[in-house]
């Protein structure tokens, strides 16, 4: 506990005893509040203007890092997915990559494309979720329903690809769980066409709506230097003019071969952050098209590293090749080796660009069936600090306009 806690009361937000200034009105927004998500924002108001904002995180903390130390290597993948189930592939990918570094294996080319494909599908679904929540914060229920309805398209694509809507557990050590079904490319292209058309409609009713523009323009501005100072990541940093994207600075999986741009906005206000997500969805659609083209052109050979594939029983291989009529094609169960996998001692770190920004894993092994230590730093955790510095000086009604624009996700930063 820090100094000054004479009464033994720790200096934690919401637990400290402080004199409130005269004419200041303290409102606790959350943790159980329609506009807060699973967190609390302690706001001090002078009239209608926020003078002090304290984001109080930890309401949905689930001790994930500690839990990971008691589970087998493969069982941690479904665990870490629970941080952000709508962005499951991006969230677990760096863990898988870090463990692969320790195992010293490289996934086959096809697996890299499959991973990138699902990452982009997840990114779109995650952005659409963010757009929808943001819109309903501003009272715009139409775009909320539209975004959530259109997100269903990509959730369906993910289901076609992986067999699960949200918690796919798709990337595993050495590869992915299954290959694309035969009708996937045409469905994906259809979804891409549909989404391009829908994004124009979003702009018409939402982003170019004078009412919404008035709410967002010039609200919650973060300058480029301030964003760098606070360590903002992901679309929020790019909306402030920082061209930083892990796919750009440290390309992973199939991204070096894919052709895409990193959209950057200079304004740094809530409107720029909203547009940033729309532009990123457009880029992700391009990537999906390229990945699907590549997957269609190249033969289906190896979506799993040989080290694991050779341990698969004959039944698995028969199912994969479609020799067993009642079981779907191109799918396998988890390789038997995963159950007793022991990872060589060592330390590894990996990072990817998740929907909300850079997600970083540090994995340490002491050669046992369970990790020695897994450390996760999530993008929402790094973005949350911005609330404390950006919100003061704005009006109370700007709180949702700023909060929503950051595409917050408390379960992700609480881990």
């Amino acid at each position, binding site marked *: 506990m820090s100094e000054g806690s004479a009464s033994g009361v720790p200096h934690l937000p919401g637990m400290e005893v402080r004199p409130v200034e005269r004419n200041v*009105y303290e*409102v606790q*927004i959350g943790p159980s*509040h*329609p*506009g807060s998500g699973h967190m609390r924002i302690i706001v001090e*108001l002078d009239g*209608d203007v926020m003078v002090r904002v304290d984001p109080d995180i930890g309401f949905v903390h689930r001790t994930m890092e500690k839990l990971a130390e008691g589970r087998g290597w493969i069982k941690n993948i479904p665990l870490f997915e629970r941080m952000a189930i709508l962005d499951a592939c991006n969230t677990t990918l760096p863990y898988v990559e870090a463990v692969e570094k320790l195992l010293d294996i490289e996934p086959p080319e096809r697996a890299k494309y499959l991973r990138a494909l699902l990452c982009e599908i997840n990114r779109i679904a995650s952005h659409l979720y963010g757009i929808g929540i943001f*819109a*309903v*914060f*501003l*009272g*715009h*229920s*139409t775009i*909320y*329903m*539209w975004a959530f*309805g259109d997100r269903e398209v990509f959730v369906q694509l993910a289901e076609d690809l992986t067999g699960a809507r949200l918690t796919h557990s798709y990337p595993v050590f050495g590869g992915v769980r299954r290959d694309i079904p035969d009708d996937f490319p045409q469905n994906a292209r259809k979804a891409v066409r549909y989404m391009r058309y829908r994004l124009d409609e979003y702009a018409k*009713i939402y982003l170019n*709506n004078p*009412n*919404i523009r*008035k*709410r967002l323009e010039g609200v919650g501005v973060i300058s480029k230097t301030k964003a760098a100072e606070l360590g903002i990541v992901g679309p929020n940093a790019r909306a402030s003019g920082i061209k930083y994207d892990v796919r750009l600075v440290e390309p992973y999986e199939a991204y070096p071969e894919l052709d895409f741009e990193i959209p950057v906005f200079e304004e740094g206000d809530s409107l720029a952050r909203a547009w940033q997500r729309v532009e990123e969805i457009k880029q992700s659609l391009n990537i999906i098209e390229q990945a699907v083209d590549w997957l269609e052109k190249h033969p289906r050979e190896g979506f799993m590293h040989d080290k694991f594939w050779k341990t698969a029983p004959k039944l698995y291989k028969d199912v994969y090749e479609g020799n067993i009529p009642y079981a779907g094609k191109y799918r396998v169960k988890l390789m038997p080796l995963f159950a007793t996998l022991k990872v060589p001692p060592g330390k590894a770190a990996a990072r990817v660009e998740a929907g909300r920004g850079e997600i970083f894993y540090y994995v340490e092994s002491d050669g046992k069936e369970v990790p020695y230590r897994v450390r996760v730093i999530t993008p929402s955790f790094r973005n949350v600090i911005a609330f404390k510095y950006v919100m003061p000086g704005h*009006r*109370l*009604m*700007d*709180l*949702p*306009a700023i909060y929503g624009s950051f595409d917050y996700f408390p379960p992700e930063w609480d881990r």
Partner: protein
Amino acid sequence: MDMVTAAKVFSDIGWGLFHYIIFYPPVYQFIIIPGLVAALVVVVFMIWFERKAAARVQMRYGPLEISPRTGGAPQLIADLIRYTVQELIIPSAADFFAFIVAPNAMLILSLLPMVAVPMTSISEYWPIPMGYSLLIAVALSTLAPIFTVVMAWASNNKFSVLGGVRESFIIVAYELIAVISLLSVVPLLHTFNLVDIVNYQMSGIWLGLLNPIALLDLFIAILMSTSGFPFEIPDSETELVAGPFTEYSGLIYGINMGGGYIRRWAFSVLMTLVFLGGWAPYRPGPGILLGYFVPSLIVVVKATIVMAIMSFLRAVYGRYRLDQALSLAWEVLIPLAFAAFGISVAEAFFGVHP
């Protein structure tokens, strides 16, 4: 006293009750049309329409499960029953008397303007003498909102108080707009008499056409006063939970939710009479059916259409910020209201008035 006499006495009392209390025009207008009963029917329809129209825009069904054949129309009845039997929680820190009385007072006072408006041009069915009816109706329409502030204060909840403060800001802003816009027809026609105002519009020239700025101003002021989108500010969910109604539950919450719509209904009726021709082009005939029910039905239908347009805006707009709404009101709408007044004066001067 034998049975026959007793029956006659009772039936006389019943007839008297029926004829002199229920059909006494001020009471009838307050209770039946266009007062409580009509308002409730319209509000139930309007909430259903609002949800259904928004659902159509948003690519979903809206209310459906209760009676899919009628598009879930009885959903609101089910909701009302739920509100009625729900537990009524009154916080121990709340001011009991004000907490209970304010919603009811608000409901009754929102309907009060209905006692001052004519539904026909036949003087037999007027609730009050019509000499200054526009002025009286406008004055009565300004009574209700203060009770939202009372509710907020009585709830003793921070969100309620913030909502109440917002409501009071909005009241001050919209009231002047609504009053000036409604009264802008007076210099044009040289009368406060609503019957004369409607009779003038029989010619087919609605005052909304003669003075569209006043109509637009009034429309926006009504949206502001009844926290319709894009001005759903006092009970903005994402910061203030339910604003002044945060602590309310059960039937009183239902009354609060309906209260805004009923106020909107009262304003819509007033707007219909002043700007949209009232019962024009129909000319009330003899008898209660042709002389009262048909014209009142026309007014009800027109006012319902006005409400439907207001409800539809939910699907198009988000909400403005409080200071943006206030600056819109004070810097744009009030000058426009004065301009509308000036237009009326000019039209009177240049002889548009017959």
